[in-house]
């Protein structure tokens, strides 16, 4: 009995410390109930009065009515596998039995007791029921007991089937003992009340057994807890090591209390002085001011919708060094599906970001250099292109000046001349503008919707002089309006210029076998929407690409233009540009001697209807007559 008390108090304390584990609350109720039942049974054995005996039996039923539901609820909480309907039925029947205990007579067992006999039990003289009239409602108690047994047996079997060793141990010891001991208690009580067994009421003994079985199982839990505590400590040490070595912060944000916990080494990662009562608002003050609203949006969305969160942001208030953090986390919800806790990690990625930025800068510089060098190679023909309108302007202006001096001045002719000068000036301006955009270093970083027809037309007009000088022809006519793709106008034009120049060069290349082609370069450019995006094919009439070269074509510094100034960077840079815009650039396999075909595939821009870029920077020529 003392042991029961100790166990009861122990579990009560555990429950007080951790109110989430309801099982720990029920266990002391069971233990205390059984102690009380034991006391009742002791009283039964000692008393000589039939009235006291009846009253005590009735009290015993009340205690039983407390211990049994507590046991069932204990099993329910601990196993988590019980059938709720069965549970309700068993508890309901037991409650009905308690009610019947008081309503149908002096106790559920007996309507009356005529006499008590005294017998010798374990060397002591104890009272037992002599002549008595059994209460027929005792069957209700027996039915309730059967319901209890069925419930516990069902819950135990389910737990056993779930399979893990810990669960099985629990199902066997707690569930098994409960079933066996319930049966035993029911048998003892039944036999005694039927007058078959002449022995004192000792129902509490099987229940002591139950408490012991439960304690045995719980002690395993304690053992496990100790083990877990040790493992937890080790794991915490490992985490702390990982945290400090990797500049990693662990954080938790209790949403209701708005309290943020950060691992000891994590404060430095966020650049915050450790504080016990850090709230979200104070935390946000440490986030870089340009990233605050964006981060707030991401956090809000993950709490309210997605449940998970990944973000890169900068920390460092004004005047502090700025660092990049990459954070990810998950929202944990309570039973009602409300978000309660936001847990995650943050890592300092400043170095990585710096490297990335530097790499992007270098890539952009390389792209720019390649563009400028392409334009350098085109300088002759570009000068020709530009000098054409200038030549016309100069001639017209000089004729105009002569005409003004004549008497009378031929005003109609002068007007014609001026109109021609205006047109040619616009044309020269357009050419200079196209070149300027290609020379420009700082192209837009953000991707914008692009009309590929405009890109191709722009590239061809830039290359017009070069194509003429090489006696080439290009077959292209802008077809139906295309869906816009996302990218940068200048970079895409660079890719097209590169492919067209390669195509023009291809005719001069020596094929693996056979004579060098004496044909003039003839390119075909096709652009059309496909299911994956928009496809541009640039086909030439050169010797084609050998399978060996096809594999190495996009490698940097690989060139087939031996000794003709090919750096071997054009295709690798073009490929990089197209990939940055989410597309692909590939050389289609072709029969040797049939010319090469390069295919660009760019995904269609998603979203509402866009106003497309149709020139390198939205420049449009002044309208006529202005």
């Amino acid at each position, binding site marked *: 009995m003392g042991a029961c008390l100790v166990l009861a108090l122990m579990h009560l304390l555990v429950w007080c410390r951790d109110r989430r584990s309801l099982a720990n609350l029920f266990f002391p109720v069971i233990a205390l109930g059984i102690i009380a039942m034991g006391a009742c049974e002791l009283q039964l054995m000692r008393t000589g009065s039939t009235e006291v005996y009846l009253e005590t039996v009735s009290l015993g039923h009340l205690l039983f009515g407390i211990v049994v539901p507590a046991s069932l609820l204990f099993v329910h909480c601990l196993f988590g596998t019980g059938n709720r309907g069965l549970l309700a039925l068993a508890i309901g029947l037991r409650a009905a039995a308690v009610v019947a205990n008081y309503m149908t007579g002096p106790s559920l067992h007996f309507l009356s007791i005529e006499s008590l006999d005294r017998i010798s039990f374990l060397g002591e003289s104890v009272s037992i029921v002599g002549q008595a009239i059994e209460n027929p409602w005792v069957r209700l108690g027996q039915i309730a007991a059967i319901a209890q047994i069925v419930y516990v047996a069902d819950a135990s079997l389910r737990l056993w089937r779930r399979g893990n060793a810990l669960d099985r141990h629990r199902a066997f010891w707690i569930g098994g003992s409960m079933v066996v001991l319930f049966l035993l208690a029911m048998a003892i009580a039944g036999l005694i009340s039927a007058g078959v067994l002449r022995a004192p009421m000792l129902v509490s003994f099987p229940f002591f057994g139950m408490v012991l079985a439960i304690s045995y199982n719980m002690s395993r839990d304690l053992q496990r807890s100790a083990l877990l505590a040790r493992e937890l400590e080790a794991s915490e040490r490992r985490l702390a090591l990982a945290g400090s070595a990797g500049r990693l912060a662990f954080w938790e944000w209790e949403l209701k209390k708005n309290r943020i916990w950060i691992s000891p080494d994590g404060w430095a990662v966020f650049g915050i002085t450790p504080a016990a009562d850090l709230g979200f608002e104070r935390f946000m003050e440490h986030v870089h001011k340009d990233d605050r609203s964006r981060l707030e949006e991401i956090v809000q969305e993950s709490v309210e919708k997605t449940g998970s969160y990944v973000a890169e942001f900068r920390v460092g208030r004004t005047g502090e060094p700025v660092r990049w953090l990459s954070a990810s986390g998950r929202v944990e919800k309570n039973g009602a599906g409300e978000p309660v806790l936001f847990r995650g990690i943050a890592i300092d990625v400043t170095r990585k970001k710096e490297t990335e930025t530097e790499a992007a800068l270098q890539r952009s510089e390389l792209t720019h250099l390649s563009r400028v060098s392409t334009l350098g190679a085109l300088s*002759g*023909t570009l*000068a*020709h*292109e*530009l*000098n*054409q*309108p*200038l*030549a*016309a*302007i*100069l*001639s*017209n202006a*000089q*004729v105009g000046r*002569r*005409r003004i001096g004549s008497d009378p001045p031929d005003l109609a002719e002068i007007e014609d*001349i001026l109109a*021609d000068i205006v*047109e*040619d000036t616009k*044309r020269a301006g357009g050419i200079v503008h196209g070149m300027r955009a290609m020379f420009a270093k700082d192209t837009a970083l953000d991707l914008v919707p692009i009309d590929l027809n405009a890109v191709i037309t722009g590239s061809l007009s830039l290359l017009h*002089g070069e194509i*003429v*000088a090489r*006696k080439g*022809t290009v077959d292209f006519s802008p077809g139906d309006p295309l869906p816009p793709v996302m990218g940068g106008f200048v970079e895409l034009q660079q890719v097209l210029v590169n492919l067209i120049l390669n195509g023009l060069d291809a005719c001069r290349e020596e094929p693996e076998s056979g004579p060098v082609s004496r044909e003039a370069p003839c390119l075909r450019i096709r652009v059309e929407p496909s299911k994956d995006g928009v496809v541009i094919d640039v086909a030439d009439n050169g010797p084609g690409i050998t399978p060996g070269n096809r594999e190495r074509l996009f490698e940097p510094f690989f060139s087939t233009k031996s000794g003709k100034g090919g750096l071997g960077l054009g295709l690798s840079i073009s490929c990089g540009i197209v990939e940055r815009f989410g597309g692909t650039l590939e050389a289609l396999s072709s029969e040797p001697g049939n010319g090469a075909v390069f295919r660009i595939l760019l995904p269609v821009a998603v979203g509402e209807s866009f106003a497309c870029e149709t020139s390198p920077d939205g420049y449009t020529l002044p309208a006529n007559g202005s």
Partner: protein
Amino acid sequence: MEAQVYIIDDDASVRRGLARLVREGGHAVESFASGEDFLEMLPAAFTRPTCALVDLQMPGLGGLELQERLKSVPNPCSIVFMSGNGSIPATVQAMKGGAVTFLTKPIHDEDLLGAIDEGLAAHRRLLTDSTQTGEIHRRIASLTDRERETMGWVITGALNKQIAGELELAERTVKFHRANVMEKMGVASVADLVRLCDAVGFVRGG
């Protein structure tokens, strides 16, 4: 004789501007968008002083190729090349091929008209020269074989007696032939006769 200027350039604006300027300079002018178009209308022979302004870089038949083709025409017109991009190799080739000059666009009016004048003058000379040599050939053709033989010796500065010895003729006969040569060739002195023969490359035994 009125001079004729042709402009061959693929750029319509350039053609219009240059044509105005050339007309302003007082020349008849006609423009073509390509070398092919120009060759198609080409007269069987140039009869009046002609100068062609040709753009070096054109689709199809380029400037230098046009120059080659023109060489097969009798008394080819003068060519002034223009380019917006004067590369040295192309300039050298153009000049070797007999171009009057090479102008880089944009072209100043005085340079252009000066080059045209130069080109016209050169062609005019060519036409005149070709008229003169034709006459000399005709005169030479009117001589008898004996007279041509005699003329061959006369222009070497040989005396009648020497010629008679060489041709195994009487000195009087040689004198007679010589008088005929001078008359038929329309010259009064041996010096003039030498100049005519020199102009057509006539030598003894030729």
